[in-house]
């Protein structure tokens, strides 16, 4: 009898655990969900990449059919960008916006939950296309008119439109939330120029998304109309213009690449000073350079279109602006290096990743400036040279930065340290693997190998470097496996991490590891951009928590989940049957209504 009752109790406990996560509005739990989901898609997308590399290992490979290959390279990019790197970024934003600015949650906790659930539904919709008649296969930038229903007959491109609109919606809501939080909820004394650089980059990213997502949302809607309601926005036979799509896409697409890299720039701007044991060199220069990149990022989009016949004057103008964006990028690199100068550098795994970020990102920046010249670009566009560029900035840059952040913040998030030994193994394998995979692509590019080809012939002189690249990608796979083992082993250990194991200067290290649900018992004073260091030097001690401390936290709510289900159903309806849209609208309306009358204390 007793055991049976225990069983029921356990099931109930289990159920309430699930319920707790489904209804949570705690930024740390939401951050966890973003992180886990994003990392899962990172793994899946990585597997598609390994399949791609396996197909290309030798000439005339026959591992993947042309159709499957084209779906894989398209989905690889879409998943990495929208379902892995962005949500992993959102995961960190969720954790560290409140913790770094000294707040107890984000400005709109329920909106935060809604962002996650909408992200999850959008990502599931896009991913399910694999099993529902074929994934999108027109490349991540999906140039019209290949995307028209005449040339892309299946529903893959509809999944593209609808899935990305939903994912964009999620990012838009999250960005508004993050921007409002950073602007309004900073701890007393934390002026904008005392904001941690990571927060600055988060703020800039939020504005980039707020300004650029509407553009691509409109473009995606127009494409959906072209495909499903025979409108003519991008189809030339009836007076539409395929180049219009390119302008709209890249007007979003270029800011988007900064959305992917700026968070990692922020992370290394935290990590490098901590492990060099010096404040960041040129704090304001790095902040201004980040802002300049954000602004200029909206004025360079046509460098993706140099070969479309823009005309001479636009070509030259966009050459100049693109070259211009190299300048603040250079400034950042110099400042990170100067931060190391004169330091006493502790080479933890996190620091390894951060330093290699500088080096790898620099290589990507150099190749970027190279094809910012249309003279060079007309020979590099759509070759593997561009593939090398994007992977040095996105893998060497964004992903290396994320790993640096994972190793740096893991003790804060979980109270446990990831193993440094295994961490360094995974670092060196990843570093070697990524350079073996992507550096040869420069050589393949100048020897003319086009990107997005599912096969190539012998005799073009591409065989050797392709084999090297494929071997490198397997090494990358192994490095990720080691990382996973590291995580699982770590999670079995007791949580013993102290509050501030790295002697870091920012506020998230002024609370326990992991932080309590209300984040801070007492929020420390802020007198500089390195508050914990300054407070120590000035002898300012944060007072103990008062007796019987009670901090009011927003109650859980299932309305975000309901609303997200409604939104998801609307999206499914757009792909399956319009009747579902009606049901979706009804559910969403109920969600909004319930949301608005729900008590918030």
């Amino acid at each position, binding site marked *: 009898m007793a055991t049976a009752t225990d069983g029921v109790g356990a099931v109930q406990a289990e159920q309430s655990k699930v319920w707790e996560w489904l209804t949570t509005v705690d930024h740390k739990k939401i951050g966890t969900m973003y992180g886990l989901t994003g990392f899962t898609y990172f793994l899946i997308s990585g597997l598609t990449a390994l399949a791609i590399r396996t197909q290309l290992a030798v000439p005339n490979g026959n591992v993947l059919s*042309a*159709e499957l290959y084209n779906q894989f390279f398209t989905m690889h990019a879409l998943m990495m960008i929208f379902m892995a790197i962005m949500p992993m970024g959102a995961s960190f934003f969720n954790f560290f916006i409140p913790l770094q600015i000294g707040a107890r949650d984000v400005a709109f906790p329920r909106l935060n939950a809604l962002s996650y659930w909408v992200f999850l539904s959008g990502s599931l919709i896009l991913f399910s296309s694999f099993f529902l008649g074929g994934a999108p296969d027109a490349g991540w930038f999906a140039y019209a*008119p*290949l995307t028209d229903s005449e*040339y892309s007959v299946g529903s893959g491109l509809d999944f593209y439109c609808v899935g990305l609109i939903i994912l964009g919606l999620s990012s838009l809501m999250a960005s508004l939330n993050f921007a409002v939080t950073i602007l309004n909820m900073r701890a007393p004394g934390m002026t904008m120029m005392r904001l941690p650089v990571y927060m600055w980059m988060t703020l800039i990213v939020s504005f980039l998304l707020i300004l650029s997502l509407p553009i691509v949302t409109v473009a995606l809607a127009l494409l959906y109309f072209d495909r499903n309601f025979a409108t003519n926005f991008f189809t*030339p*036979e009836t007076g*539409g213009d*395929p*180049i219009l799509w390119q302008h709209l896409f890249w007007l979003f697409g270029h800011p988007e690449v900064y959305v992917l890299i700026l968070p990692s720039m922020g992370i290394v701007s935290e990590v490098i000073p901590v492990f*060099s*044991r*010096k*404040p960041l*060199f*040129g704090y304001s220069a790095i902040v201004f350079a980040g802002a300049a990149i954000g602004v200029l990022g909206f004025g360079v989009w046509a460098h993706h279109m140099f*070969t*479309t*016949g823009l005309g*001479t004057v636009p070509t*030259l103008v966009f*050459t100049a602006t693109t070259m211009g964006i190299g*300048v603040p990028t*250079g*400034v950042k690199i*110099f400042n990170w*290096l*100067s931060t*190391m*100068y*004169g*330091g*006493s*550098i502790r080479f933890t795994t996190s620091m390894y990743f951060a*330093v290699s970020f*500088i*080096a790898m990102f*620099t290589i990507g920046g*150099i190749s970027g*400036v*190279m094809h910012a*010249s*249309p*003279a*060079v670009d*007309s*020979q590099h*566009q759509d*070759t593997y040279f561009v593939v090398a560029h994007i992977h040095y900035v996105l893998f060497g840059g964004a992903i290396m930065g994320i790993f640096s952040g994972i190793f740096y913040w893991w003790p804060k998030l979980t109270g446990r340290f990831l193993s440094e030994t295994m961490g360094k193994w995974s670092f060196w394998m990843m570093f070697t693997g990524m350079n073996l995979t992507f550096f040869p692509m420069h*050589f393949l590019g100048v*020897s*003319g*190998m*086009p990107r*997005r080809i*599912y*096969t190539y*012939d012998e*005799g073009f*002189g591409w065989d050797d470097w392709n084999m090297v690249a494929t071997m490198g990608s397997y090494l990358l796979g192994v490095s990720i496996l080691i990382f996973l083992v590291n995580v699982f082993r770590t999670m079995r250990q007791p949580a013993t991490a102290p509050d501030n194991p790295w002697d870091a200067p920012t506020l998230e290290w002024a609370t326990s590891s992991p932080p309590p649900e209300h984040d801070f018992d007492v929020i420390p004073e802020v007198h500089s951009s390195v508050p914990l260091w300054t407070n120590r030097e000035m002898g300012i001690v944060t007072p103990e928590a008062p007796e019987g401390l009670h901090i009011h936290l927003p109650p859980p709510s299932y309305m975000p989940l309901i609303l997200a289900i409604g939104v998801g159903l609307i999206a499914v309806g757009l792909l399956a049957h319009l009747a579902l849209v009606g049901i979706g609208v009804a559910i969403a309306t109920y969600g909004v209504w319930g949301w608005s009358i729900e008590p918030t204390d």
Partner: protein
Amino acid sequence: MTARSRQIVIAVASVVAVAFVSWLIFIAFDGAAVDKRLSTLNPLSDQTQLYHDVYVLVWWLSGIVFIVIMAATLILSVLYRERPGVESRREIHGNTRLEILWTIIPIVIVLIIVVPTFGAVLSVERDAEEGALEVTATGHQWWFEFTYHDSDGNELFRTANEMHVPVEQAVNVSLVSDDVIHAFWVPALFGKKDMVPGHNNRLWFKSKPGTEGMHYGQCVEYCGDSHANMRFRVFVESRADYDAWVTNQIATAKWSDDELVDAGREVFMAKACNSCHQIEYSKSDAPDWLVPPRVAAIGPNLSHLASRTTIASGLLDRDESNLRAWLKNPPGIKPGSRMPNLELTDDEITKLIAMLDSLE
């Protein structure tokens, strides 16, 4: 070892290490230039030469920046690795002079690139020379069509996947597309330019002396299933060879009375090959049913197929076994091909090949 000599040793060792890696990279880049069909480092026209000069400048500047930043990263990492008894110099927060300096350095570098870039772009993008040969290149999923014009713009003939031009002659190529966006690219002769439906792009090039020979080209804008299989070739020829080629292309298709060829022509009509392909026989040779009016091409014009070196947009050499494989199952060779599997028997294929081989 004193602190000073330690610093020097570390710095020298780092620079040597980075220089060594850079040297390997240099060799690999150089290797990419040699004997590669689509090498971008082998400029054979005035236009690619202009662009190549910019590339070389950009490449060396990039190399210098690469060495400096990599060496600096390495040196700083080794030099300032924590050591017992050595404290970090916390006082350094920033330095306005330095910030200005390293804002100026990248500005100077990009200016050095921008100025010659502008010059090269302006001269490559200007209008083609007087008296340029006029060719229209049309992108189709997944092959290229070439239409030659006389100096008044009248159409002379159409061919596919192999373009012939006289050496040292300016050629003005109009770029159009019949379906989706493709891109036209022969790295030795001209940089990439897109073929956008509804737009009329163009490029022009003039081959350098002594560049006679075959040059490889490739579609470099993703255009669907068989994008990988969309290749073409450009033959740069002496004036005499070119003229002979033109004369042959303008002529009607060669008539042959061979029995097998005749049987092939019947299969051609019976299987409705002619609904997509044209063979332009002379009215005086051929019966009426064989001479349809000229229509927009769905497939390549076959009037002079036997004068080409390849079939299937440069995928296969034009020989008996490849033709057989192609006719047996086109989508098997080129996934998604607009030419369906016509379920031809071996015997029909033999006849067709005989006929196709007669079309010099």
